[in-house]
């Protein structure tokens, strides 16, 4: 966010206050160790009692990796994330195709654009029932899809989804590791952070 021009504020999981921030990113990691289903405990963290209603009212929220899992567990996004098809952790540079360029997090991209980001997860396989999938596809709610091969067995190659209002997005790969060619595969990921600044400025 700093690189995109915003001032990041750290929010504490045990403190049910959003401190008046304009947007929230739930980062990757291993909340509570993920010894249970990923994100299943984190959804009950005190901060979530504030975040969930705020997200329903339009606060831009992006869940990356474990954050995506938490958003699904919180039912802010449909579907769930399960063990990778290969049953092993996958750490790899990958391409995804941006499919929805009208969300709060993807307006700086063009639909159909391929970007290179980093996938690093053990439970990254997106699953959803047939009805949910049909609704996602029909509503244009698939945010991004894996390009050039499906690295983890996600249904329909789905790498990220967004809610109907376009403010809550979940993404399995990590755009924050693609903000500088020195420490990642390039800066294709910056668009997520630039997009939300536009969305916040317009709101």
């Amino acid at each position, binding site marked *: 966010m700093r690189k995109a021009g915003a001032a990041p504020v750290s929010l504490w999981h045990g403190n049910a206050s959003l401190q008046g921030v304009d947007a929230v990113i739930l980062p990757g990691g291993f909340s*509570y160790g993920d010894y249970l289903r990923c994100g299943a405990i984190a959804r009950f963290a005190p901060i979530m009692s504030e975040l969930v209603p705020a997200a329903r009212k339009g606060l831009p929220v992006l869940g990356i990796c474990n954050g995506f899992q938490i958003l699904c567990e919180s039912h802010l996004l449909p579907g769930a994330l399960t063990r990778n098809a290969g049953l*092993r*952790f996958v750490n*790899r540079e990958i391409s995804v195709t941006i499919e929805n360029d009208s969300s709060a997090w993807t307006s700086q991209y063009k639909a159909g654009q391929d970007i290179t980001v980093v996938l690093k997860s*053990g439970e990254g396989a997106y699953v959803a029932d047939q009805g949910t999938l049909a609704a996602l596809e029909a509503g244009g709610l698939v945010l991004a899809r894996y390009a050039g091969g499906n690295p983890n067995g996600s249904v329909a190659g789905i790498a990220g989804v967004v809610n109907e209002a376009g403010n809550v997005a979940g993404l399995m790969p990590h755009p924050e*590791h693609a903000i500088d060619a*020195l*420490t990642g595969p390039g800066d294709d990921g910056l668009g997520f952070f630039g997009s939300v600044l536009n969305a916040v400025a317009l709101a």
Partner: protein
Amino acid sequence: MTTQQAGADTVADAAATPDRQQPFRALGLTDEEYRRITSLLGRRPTDAELAIYSVMWSEHCSYKSSRTHLRQFGEKAPRTDVLLAGIGQNAGVVDVGHGYAVTFKIESHNHPSFVEPFQGAATGVGGIVRDILAMGARPVAVMDALRFGPADAPDTHRVLPGVVGGISFYGNCLGLPNIGGELAFDPCYAGNPLVNALCVGVMRHADLKLAAATGPGNQVILFGSRTGPDGIGGASVLASASFGGGSEGAKRPSVQVGDPFMEKLLVECCLELYQAGLVVGIQDLGAAGVACATTELAAGGGTGMRVRLDAVPLRDSSLGPPEILMSESQERMMAVVAPGDVERFLQICARWDVQATVIGEVTDTGRLEMSWQGAPVVDIPPGSAADEGPVCDRPAQRPASQDALQADDSSRLPRPAPGDRAGLRAALLAVLGSPDAADKSWVTEQYDCYVRGDTVLAKPHDAGVLRIDEETGLGVALATDGNGRYCQLDPYAGTQLALSEAFRNVAVTGARPLAVTNCLNFGSPEDPAVMWQFAEAVRGLADGCLTLGTPVTGGNVSFYNQTGGMAIQPTPVIGVLGVHDDVRRRVASGFGTDGGSIVLLGATRAEFGGSLWAWVTHRHLGGRPPLVDFAAEMALARVMAAAADRGLLTAAHDLSDGGLAVALAEACLTGGVGCQVTLPGDPFTLLFSESAGRAVVAVRPGAEAEFATLCAQEDLPAFVIGATGGTSLEVSEAFEIPLADLAAVHRAVLPSLFG
């Protein structure tokens, strides 16, 4: 007379029943060592004291067989002003400039990883991370040097996926990037895999913490996980006995189980405690648990300590004093805290959901006293357990078979003649497709190398490179290397070659090598031939570090890596740390752009003893390893640093196992750009010799003359052998292989073996 709870053998009981038989032999103590304890204390030890001495005087904790040799690292230490803390601390600390210091160390977890690969390897990561944390640093990355039995052996398919899975599970969850390491295979590791874990941490100079309990009246706080029965005598007793001989049952206590999320909380909690200035002294709990932490803290502070053992929070309420002292439950730390700071200390721990308990205080008595339900169960001078353990001057004898091994020169091996293009091609594909040289993505894809956002280079590059300071670009480079084959042929030279290679791997990225850590993996010290190998290796490393000007900052010895009568090849694994003034000027190992002229640096001799080619194509190990030439390594390093600084290079890759042939193939595959090369001499020798002190580089178009001048100034042999470009690896005297075909061979090996 009052009745004590079972297991609570008090000091009074010990005085009253001097003749009670104690199971000291089962705990690994010799008759002589037991007599020494009795005379030290003037009575028989209590059960709790016996537990302390048995673990602290074990090979693992006391370095009794190695200590006389390891002194050379101090005696021959090069003059340096970069070392802020050295051998004897939890890890060495090196000044890297701008007020930053870096601490790094490598440690073995070999025996637990054979018994229970997943948890054994996972807790190996956890243990070394706490060592780094205990110095006051934030751990920022890990690496792993792994060695297994033959890649196609059934047991390797049990051990390797478990070890890699355990490292992945623990390191990824902890949020530490894994930036490199090694993976090698040899039949000698079939019953004794080597799992060596390295961690590096960063701090400001002022943040340095020492393991010393100072200030009588200060409180002793145990924090982190509760203490359970796991790993009692695990590392300490287990790692001090060979497998085999029918004693597995007695010598295989349970391997510890890791909780990486608790470790993550512990890391963040400790860093906040340091920041708040609440820590006087600190020690991690690893091998020998509370016994080790209390004795070392008290001995380090030159003080005494009083500990209430029944205050230790337990996961299993049936544990008594000896078990509590020996437990190797993971994710625990012990801190010394001023009485007025205890409340704030406990508050910060609570914020991180870390359990913290005052279990005792520092005294000025010079005694380590412990009580259990009010009765004294330990009363010893702490230094007698921590520092004054037994020292064995074990006999060392060069084995009679060494002469025959060295005489069995590789020159008799059939090899492709000049003009035998098919033979040279087959040799390249055989070597490149061997498990040792194969692409390691199957392993490294299971490790997060990006987390924390400061990883500049990771595998498959020669060294891991991390950014420390975003503003200046200050960073470090790290590499580990070992070569059991070279060391089997000549442990002195082989160790120096491992040092040379790690030094070179760091140097080719453009970093200045600064300091050394080591993990010395050997067979049984009770075998004079192994002891000779060990002595030679230590002498080689100490002499090498003196010549290179890079001090040994610390390390670890792992003995008893043998099953029955078969010892592993002597395998010192050497880690070298270098500094980058600006990581933006680092040089990566892959050919990434067309039109760069390719230069072979260093002298190539016909050296095939212990080479990958001889092993892969002839299963031959004999002769002498390549010549060690530290002057050439230093000249190469100076050229590389200057060239990186001036931006003259687009790629640089060191030459090691598999020689120029493998180096060129790797540089093409890593960067995705081919090359055309013409060799200045005998093709086979130039392609497959493993002469040290060499690298292959791609020069930025327009910088050729400046680079040539730089090499000439350092008298570094430099041969322009070709140019980057195209989609195949083309060596005019030997082969032209499309990169897609090379990649297929290189990348298929591990997936086809391990799924």
